[in-house]
């Protein structure tokens, strides 16, 4: 297993380097003078020259790239043009917000997706099966930004059940320790805020989690159907075990590997979807951070934000691959 982990990590290195090249190219691919693009046409030649110097745009590109890599390895992501704050410092609360949202969305997607898939396979061709698969089909075709808007309209504006934007009651905030508000309100012992934080999480995580939920449900169902027809399940049934144990213990264990892959892939895809969800729900996460940087042409932030999300994406895929190998030893020898 150790050798396999090492191999997987080594394979990651060229991909990560390639990613830095692409992200580095972003600022260099801007047509015309980046300094003028960033500062606007009215900027003086002096300030443009200063910015070019600051961004190192006067050096040859390979020097710039190595300088950029050097900074990255030191953990320096550069400085936001708009706020003049180092990005490493600025991005932390945004990252925490995105983490909280994606974990909640994935928890929702896994719980409902896996269970719907299992029950659909168990009660194949029942009305429950049909309804679940119809919902799953619509779910994969749903533009999440529209789903988010509809949720806001129904559950916030019409029914007044849930708040439509933000992360908590801003008038009486909890002290930020981890920036994960669920944990922060627990630390502060603020049960009232814990409840409002939960309520704020529901709509965005349902919007973000719907596509993964649908994909997971479909995969669980087809994988379970395959396993349910196998001999060992028949044996388990013949032994007189209860249906529930056969389905949830014997069958699920063997059907779970493809489901795990899909969960991993979907978690990665969620990071992209977060940009849209965060825009709609005014959720102060990395997606929104990047989006705002785009509107204000804050290129260092765009670069670093994209690099961080892509990095997380690769790491999640690595974790899934490793989990996959841990669950199914055959994979390590391929």
């Amino acid at each position, binding site marked *: 297993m150790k050798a396999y982990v090492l191999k997987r990590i080594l394979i990651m290195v*060229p*991909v990560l380097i*390639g*990613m830095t090249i*692409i*992200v580095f190219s*972003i600022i260099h*691919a*801007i*047509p015309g003078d980046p300094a003028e693009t960033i500062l606007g046409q009215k900027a003086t030649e002096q300030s443009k020259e200063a910015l070019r110097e600051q961004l190192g745009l006067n050096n040859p590109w390979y020097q710039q790239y190595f300088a950029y890599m050097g900074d990255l390895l030191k953990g320096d992501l550069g400085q936001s043009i708009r706020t003049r704050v180092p990005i490493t410092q600025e991005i932390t609360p945004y990252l925490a917000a995105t983490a909280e949202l994606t974990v909640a969305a994935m928890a929702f997607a896994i719980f409902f997706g896996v269970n719907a898939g299992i029950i659909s396979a168990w009660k194949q061709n029942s009305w429950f099966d049909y309804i679940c698969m119809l919902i799953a*089909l*619509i779910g*994969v*075709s*749903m*533009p999440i*930004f*529209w789903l988010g*808007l*509809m949720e*806001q*309209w129904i559950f916030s*504006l019409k029914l007044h059940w849930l708040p439509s934007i933000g992360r908590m009651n801003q008038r009486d905030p909890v002290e930020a320790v981890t920036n994960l508000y669920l944990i922060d309100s627990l630390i502060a012992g603020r049960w009232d805020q814990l409840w409002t934080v939960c309520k704020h999480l529901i709509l965005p995580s349902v919007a973000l989690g719907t596509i993964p939920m649908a994909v997971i449900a479909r995969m669980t169902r*087809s994988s379970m159907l395959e396993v349910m027809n196998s001999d060992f399940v028949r044996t388990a049934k013949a032994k007189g075990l209860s249906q529930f144990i056969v389905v949830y213990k014997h069958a699920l264990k063997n059907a779970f590997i*493809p489901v795990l892959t899909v969960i991993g892939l979907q978690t*990665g*895809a969620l*990071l*992209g*979807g977060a*940009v*849209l969800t965060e*825009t*709609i729900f005014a959720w102060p996460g990395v997606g929104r951070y*990047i*989006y705002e940087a*785009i*509107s204000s042409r804050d290129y260092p932030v*765009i670069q670093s934000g*994209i690099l961080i*999300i*892509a990095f997380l*994406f*690769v790491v999640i*895929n690595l974790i899934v691959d490793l989990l996959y190998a841990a669950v199914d030893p055959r994979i390590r020898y391929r």
Partner: protein
Amino acid sequence: MAQATTATSNGSTSVSVEKVSGPWRDAWRTFRKNKIAMVGLVMIGFFILIALLAPVIAPYEYDTQALRDRLKAPSSSHWFGTDDLGRDLFTRVLYGARISLWVGTFSVVGSIILGTLLGILAGFYGKWIDMVISRLFDILLAFPSILLAIAIVAILGPSLQNALLAIAIVNIPTYGRLVRAKVLSLKNEEYITAARAIGMKNSAILLRHILPNSLTPIIVQGTLGIATAIIEAAALGFLGLGAQPPTPEWGKMLSDSRQFIATAPWTVIFPGVSIMLTVLAFNLMGDGLRDALDPRMKS
């Protein structure tokens, strides 16, 4: 496809080939039996018809403003109501079908052409070419696709064309990998060895044997890919990075109207439902095609 007739060079005689069975005919038969896939096909046909006939069916011009009629609820004169500038939503939704289908189809065609080219180069020629291209695919796939598209549009500047280009670029690896894998598995087939033995050139082998045999997975993936591309284009439009006003693009219409959702929900409902139904249609058809053309691809 089974050819019905073949003509000799002078065109005087034609030989009739019996239409018994062929892979495409079999596929069509399986596809036709799949009711859900047929629903998808009919829906796609309907949307294409709407897109083509938009100028004929539409009761108004998509950019005619009538400020007296702003945010009017659906009625007999405005079936889908009007938006904040008094433009007829039914007309705009009809024209939106043109844009979405156009962007969806052309971006996928673009990704397929480039992906196939790179996939064939990598799979057929192998060695360092394969190394470079495969790593490039790995790297492109290491970004969430919508994020990479956002980055590309941020560089090129927001417009519908650039959104199309960005979506085409981010989806190249999907097709490239598919074709590469197919070429690798075909390369060692006996009939390719035979073709080489009789002295066929590489280019001829590629065109006559390898490319036609790689078509199936591309068609399936391409159909599902149009669904994804339509959503991605709408997402870029929603973020203000795609179509620019007054282009009636569905995603842009959503973002322009979202502030009126409480008072005029129809401005948000109709464009959204249109996106969903179009995407659903391509997903249904793609699933059906997969079952019909290549049952082993089911996953």
